């Protein structure tokens, strides 16, 4: 009989044990009677020879090797009974446990995504986010579209890309649905080193006002809106009421500060804020290898003279 059947057939095991010990006692007693003892005396002597029956049984149960499971079951029962008797204590215990576990999980999730997990881009260690600086406001992460255009123009050697949040409603195909989106400059995919799974990346000639609207969609959206059909390339996606031609499918798991489903071109955005130098809503990314940097991301600006000059020009103009 293996461990599992010993555990599961506990009542059977108990019966067998009881029966075996009873046989032993009766056999011993009848031997003693045959040797001339009185029945009562014989039974007493047999019991005495075997020892306390409960102790013997306990030792036999220990020998089964299933003891810890049975003890665990008893401990759990005992714990539940105690909880029922003292619900206040139980509630506080559970609350403390829940908060503790929750806090630890949150901390791990944040540390894991911010510090431990590398970015989902190839060779992400060479990427830097570009920050601006003004004497008046100090360092800032956001670029206005005009600043970005000037900076990019002034630092020809540096491939820079910009993005901003741009969610919206998909009207067709399928049911209307609000999805997360990003407006990106045409260079973003090449700068990140990402190639679309199908189709192509954006072209810089498309990255300007009045060009034909095109979109790259996430792998997930492609699966549930286009049934993962590669012929989705060239189809029309109505996004924010405007038909966009789908030109590419992002690779699975591609993230950009979240899991956006639709990528459109920043340059096709005609909002007034695109012409407002004070509206600093763009994140700017650059590959640091082009800056000849060897001393860590914090020093990138010091090692990119042309870039540094551009910032100061931008500052003067702004």
């Amino acid at each position, binding site marked *: 009989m293996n461990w599992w059947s010993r555990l599961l057939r506990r009542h059977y095991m108990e019966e067998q044990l009881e029966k*075996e010990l009873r046989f*032993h006692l009766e*056999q*011993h007693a009848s031997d003693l009677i045959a040797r001339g003892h009185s029945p009562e005396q014989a039974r007493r002597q047999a019991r005495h020879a*075997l020892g306390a029956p409960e102790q*013997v049984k306990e*030792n*036999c149960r220990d*020998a089964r*090797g299933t003891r810890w499971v049975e003890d665990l079951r008893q401990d759990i029962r005992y714990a539940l009974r105690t909880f029922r008797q003292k619900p206040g204590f139980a509630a506080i215990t559970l609350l403390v446990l829940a908060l503790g576990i929750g806090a630890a999980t949150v901390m791990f999730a944040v540390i894991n995504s911010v510090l431990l997990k590398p970015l989902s881009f190839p060779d992400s260690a060479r990427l830097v986010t570009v920050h601006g600086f003004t004497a008046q406001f100090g360092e800032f992460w956001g670029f206005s579209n005009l600043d970005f255009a000037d900076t990019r123009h002034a630092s020809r050697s540096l491939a820079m890309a910009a993005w901003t949040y741009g969610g919206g409603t998909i009207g067709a195909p399928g049911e209307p649905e609000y999805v997360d989106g990003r407006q990106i400059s045409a260079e973003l995919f090449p700068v990140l080193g990402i190639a679309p799974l199908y189709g192509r990346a954006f072209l810089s000639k498309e990255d300007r006002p009045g060009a034909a609207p095109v979109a790259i969609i996430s792998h997930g959206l492609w699966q549930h809106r286009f049934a993962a059909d590669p012929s989705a390339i060239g189809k029309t996606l109505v996004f924010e009421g405007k038909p966009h031609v789908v030109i590419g499918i992002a690779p699975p798991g591609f993230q950009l500060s979240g899991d956006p489903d639709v990528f459109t071109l920043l340059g096709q955005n005609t909002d007034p804020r695109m012409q407002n130098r004070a509206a600093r809503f763009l994140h700017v990314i650059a590959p640091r290898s082009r800056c000849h940097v060897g001393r860590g991301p914090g020093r990138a600006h010091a090692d990119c003279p042309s870039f540094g000059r551009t910032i100061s020009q931008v500052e003067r103009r702004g």
Partner: protein
Amino acid sequence: MAGSKSDLPQGTLDLLILKAIAVDPVHGYAIAQRLEQVSRGVVQVPEGSLYPALHRLENRGLLTANWKKTDTGREAKFYRLTRKGRKQLEADAVSWQRLIEAVGLILGLGEGGAQ
């Protein structure tokens, strides 16, 4: 009476049980009887330890048990050796033999000893 009986050294009960059931299947009570008889009353099996030991050996696969009728027509649990148990018995007997020879040598009871 008590002076003529010896307590079993630690760990020998398993070996004695294996030996006692080596020939034919026996139930627990008969194992105790058999050991006492064969040792001419010197070894008294602590009955309280006998059953835990039997169950432990059974769970280790050294012996196996089934219920059979005794001569008197009563149901009893009979134990017999498995192949693994027989190997264990042989190995244990050899190492026991070596141990008592060594102890005998140390106590001067061996060849060339005083007695």
